[in-house]
Every structure is written in C-alpha cells, then in structure tokens.
C-alpha cells in the first residue's frame, strides 16, 4: 500500500493542457477542503447522522471522472461519496446543504451524506449499502449500450466492497454482456477497522478481474496521473465496445471510518501518508514546470471561499417541514 514513490516523478505523457490541469487541481482541492471543513463542522455537533470523509483519496475520483461527461456517463458511489459527487460536478453548495438536512440540499434534505445524488449530472447516488452500486452501474452501462450513445458507467467501491457478492456478480455480468463499464475499487486498506490484507482473499483486487474475463490493473492512488491514465484507457476501451475493466486504486483515508472513529489502529499510517504521499501536494510538485504557483494559489483561495459560503448558506437555509414528509415516495399513487 505504501510502496509509492516519495519523490514526485514526472507524469508520463498525459495529454492534459493547462485548463484541464487547473480543473483537476480545483476538483481535488475542493474535495479536500470540503472534507477537512466537514471534519471541523462535525465536531460542533451541528451535522446530523453518519459522515464518511474522502480526504486523502482525491486523486481517484478526480482522475477517473476527468474522463466523463455529465450527460451520457454515469457513476455510482458509496457511503464515502462526497469526492465522487464533487468530481462528477454535483453542486457543492447543494451537497453541503444536504449534509445539513436543508431544503436547499441536493435531495431536499431527505437523503443526507450517504445518499447525495444528482441524476442530471449522471451521479446515481452515494449508497449506504456496501456493494449497492455495481449492479446499478451494469444497468446504466446497459442503457448506454442499448441506445448506442457511447456512454459508460463507472462503479466506485472499496476494498471491503470487493468482497460483497453483489459486486462480484456485477463483474461477471458486465463481462458476459460486454458492457461499457469500469469498476474502480478504491483500496484504502480498511473496511471500518478490518484490514484489506486480511479480508481480500488472494490479496489483490485487481487480480479478480481475470476470474471474470476482463482486464484488471492496480494503480497508485496518490498519483493523479497514474489514475488518470489507467481510467482513460479503460473508459476509451469501454466506449469503443471493448467491454469492462477493473481498476484497483491503492490509497489511504485520512480520517476514521466515519466521523467519531478515533482510528487509533492506524495512526502512524495516516501520519506517514499525509506527510509523504499526499495526492494534492504531489500534484503541485508534478505540475510545477507547467503551472505557476500563483495560479494554484488563486484556486485555493476561490475554493476556500466557496466552502465558507457553502457552510454559511447551508446553516442559514430552511429545514424541511411536515409538508415534505410524505411527498416523493411515488410519482403517482392514490
């Protein structure tokens, strides 16, 4: 897991121009700030429910979603979904408001952190069920295939989720149906407090691809460019009718399983990752020759402002009322 380089190496030919790099940086920075701020806000006691932070894993969502269209491409996410939402262009303020349970939230306050979705952006939802997303993504990919619109479906799941039967079945179905689908296993080493080294029989998630007849690769998730390259190849192949791919992204979560978990069981590991491997820092080093520090600092400032506004607007937004309780269960009923 931590076999990655300590010194930044130059990304291979990535074909990304300045605006694309700035975009990627903005996405990663937005995710990071969103999560760090949530960590603080959660401590105030004002955020209800369960919150699972994505900080540390930014390069994965960003590197994958950089290849996706809002319109024809769909992703499904997990309980740890904020990063995927932001990378798929869900409005950040609507996300924050959702987490605070407000009517201005992406889901009118009915979903919360674990169920943020925006179908108009091809974001089929965070998911409270481990392994809930992969079957749905088979369907999104099937719809794209039936329509022939070149769209792809991408399912994110964790190392823990890679042991769920629903996920394993979906790999097989995608292979059998030759779907335009990509399965991204974010292996952060733990499912709650259970280590992936123990729970993933055979030790490699990527190697499971072969069992279902699809290519599998394992990439360094601290390196945006590594993720970007692997995802690009898989998504291009899917669009071209070449079928599904499984990508294992090796990375680390900076916070506990959920807010409230002290994670004493891995304090050293987190310290090391933050200091030596951090994907945002590394990205800045990797693009040092291409982008000016000032450009990146300007984004930092813009993002900081956005997150500030998101929090203060969420806090000020109205809560839903009794009139909202029984609406939207059905489109039509009685």
């Amino acid at each position, binding site marked *: 897991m931590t076999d990655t380089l300590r010194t930044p190496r130059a990304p291979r030919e990535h074909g990304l121009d300045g605006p694309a790099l700035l975009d990627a940086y903005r996405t990663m920075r937005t995710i990071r700030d969103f999560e760090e701020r949530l960590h603080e806000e959660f401590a105030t006691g004002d955020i209800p429910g369960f919150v699972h932070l994505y900080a540390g894993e930014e390069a994965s969502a960003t590197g994958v979603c950089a290849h996706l269209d809002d319109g024809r491409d*769909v992703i*499904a996410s997990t309980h740890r979904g904020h990063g995927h939402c932001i990378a798929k262009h869900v409005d950040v303020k609507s996300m924050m408001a959702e987490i605070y349970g407000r009517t201005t*939230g*992406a*889901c*009118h*306050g*009915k*979903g919360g952190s674990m*169920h943020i*979705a*925006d*179908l*108009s952006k091809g974001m*089929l*939802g965070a*998911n*409270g*069920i481990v392994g*809930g997303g*992969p*079957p*749905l*993504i*088979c*369907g*999104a990919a*099937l*719809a*794209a295939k*039936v*329509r022939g619109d070149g769209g792809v*479906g991408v399912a994110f799941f964790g190392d823990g989720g890679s042991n769920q*039967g*629903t996920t394993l*079945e*979906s790999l*097989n*179905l995608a292979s*059998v*149906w030759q779907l335009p689908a990509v399965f991204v296993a974010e292996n952060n080493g733990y499912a709650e407090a259970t280590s992936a080294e123990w729970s993933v029989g055979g030790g490699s998630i990527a190697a499971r691809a072969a069992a279902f007849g699809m290519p599998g690769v394992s990439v360094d998730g601290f390196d945006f460019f590594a993720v970007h390259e692997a995802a690009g190849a898989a998504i291009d192949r899917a669009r071209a009718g070449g079928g599904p791919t499984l990508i294992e992204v090796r990375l680390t979560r900076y916070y506990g399983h959920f807010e409230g978990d002290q994670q004493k069981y891995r304090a050293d590991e987190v310290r090391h990752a933050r200091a030596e491997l951090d994907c945002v820092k590394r990205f800045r080093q990797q693009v040092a020759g291409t982008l000016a520090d000032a450009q990146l600092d300007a984004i930092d400032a813009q993002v900081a402002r956005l997150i500030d506004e998101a929090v203060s607007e969420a806090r000020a937004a109205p809560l839903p009322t009794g009139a909202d309780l029984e*609406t*939207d*269960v*059905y*489109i*039509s*009923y*009685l």
Partner: protein
Amino acid sequence: MARSISYREALNEALAQEMERDPSVIVMGEDNAGGAGAPGESDAWGGVLGVTKGLHPRFPGRVLDTPISESAFIGAAIGAATRGLRPVAELMFIDFMGVCFDQIFNQAAKFRYMFGGKAVTPVVIRAMYGAGLRAAAQHSQAMYPAFTAVPGLKVVLPSSPYEAKGLMIQAIRDDDPVIFCEHKAMYDVVGEVPAESYTIPFGEAGIVREGEDVTVVALGRMVSVASDAAAELAASGVDCEVIDPRTTSPLDAGTILESVARTGRLVVVDEASPRCGMAADIAALVAREEFGALRAPIGAVTPPHTPVPFSPALEDLYMPDAGRVVAAVKSAVDWKP
C-alpha cells in the same frame, strides 16, 4: 371480446405490444432469450415460465439472457430504468427475492424519496408466486406482503388473463417500480382478453360479484377460490360481495370500506403466510376505518404459519380452498355477540 387466451399468452402479448409501441422497453432474465451463446439455443426457452417465448427473434437486442446473478441483473434493470429504459426483469420464482432484495427495497424503492424527488425508476420485476404445483418450500411462497410493506414499491397480483394483460401494460407504462406477481398455477388458465392494447389502473379494485351480506376480499389466485365459495354460499342464501384489489400497493381502501359499510362483515382470503400478511393488513384497515359498521369478527382464510409442504397430501391441506371460505363466511354470518 370473444377471443380467449391463457394467462401466459396474455402476459406475452402485453410484453410484445409494449415492446412494439415503445423502443425503451427491454426484457431480461434467466433464459428469457432462450439460452444464449450456444448454437440452436435462441428462443429454446422463453424463460422457465415460457412467458417471453418468441420475443427474442422479434425484438433483436432487446431480450436478454442473464447469468444466475439476481442481484446483478435485477440491479441492472433498476439502473437502466434510471437512465430512461423501461426494463421488465424476470426474477422467476418470487422465492428468489432473498438473493436480491437489497436492490429492490433499498435501491429502486427509495431512490425517489432519498434523492428528493429527482429519480424516475420505471422498472417492472416479474416473479411467479404461490403454492399448488408441489414445488415445495423454496418455490411456492407468496412473498408479496414483504414487498407491499416497502414504501416506494407498487405490487400487482393479476387474478385472470384479462387482468394479467391490462395490469402488465399499466406496469410497464407506470413510472414507479412495480413488483408484478404471477401465480404459477394460473399460466394455463384461459379467459377472454381483448386483442388490442389496454390498461387497468393501479389501486382500483375489481368487484367480481356484488352482494349484500358479507364482503369477501380475495387476492390473486384466491379470487377464483372466493368466487367458487360465493357461488356455493348463494345456493344456501348467503349473498357475498367478492372484491379483487388487483394491487396491494396502492390498495383501493375506498372500495373495501364502502362494501363493508354495507355488509357489516368481512372475510379476507389470502395465500400469503398469516403473520403480517395481506389478510392482517386489510383486517386492520377495516377495524380502524369502518369499525362502526362491523357486525362480526373479521375472518381470515390463509395458510397456517408453516413453510409450504411438498407432499400433495399436505399441500392440498395447506392451501385455502372454497370449503374454508364457506366456513369462514358462515361463521361471520352466524356470529352472535
């Protein structure tokens, strides 16, 4: 509408007509295209039920076989529905819900609410239910109460070929997720069915027989059992009103309550297990909303609280029959405070 076809044919015709009309309708399930990938298998089967037979050659690319991976393919149908298709997925036996229930009740059913009203998931999940074919405990259940309990799902129980066609077309056109429960002992039942396309709205009960003495609410295959009982009772001077709710969710409470308001007596006939089932659900509705009209205890005719036994000798005792309905109605009529 002089033409008579079977329940199976009625369903097949509904699927074919909707596939013809709307290119977004697709069909999937184990052997639904008839076995795939090997020579000569195309349309060999039309699902184990034969309901999809003939569709595969007629609608190329829109009738899909699946591996035995119910979570994956039922989930895929749901995911495809969120992207604008109208998939009709066959779970085969409703007893198999246990390997894929999550996709149905935690995903499809909840999207619209959890996502603040922004999801549309027009999926139909077909499954056969019910006892009577000596299929034993894991292939004979009537699991629809577990689906009826889930907010966000609609649940359909057609009681005849006519209902099967009209409700299926409605299910496909409906924008909410629908669980469509076909009784396995009814596929060969024949009845009059219009050749043209038509829909039967959800939440509108059918009044199978009008009557003044006792309201008998019966579901799915039990509608014909209750009708037989009503005929027998009529001969002995008891006039039953037989109501077929057609859908358990939404449930047409109005028709049931209005009937009990007239008759003062209720017997519910249901094939599901007795605990937390439809018989209880409808009894509770009436005991809450129309108590003042009730003149007798609410009768329930259901199987016992046991798995479905295999031996024909036991299964015949397990299933509600007209004799038990007659007895329940008579005891309601004869009841003295």
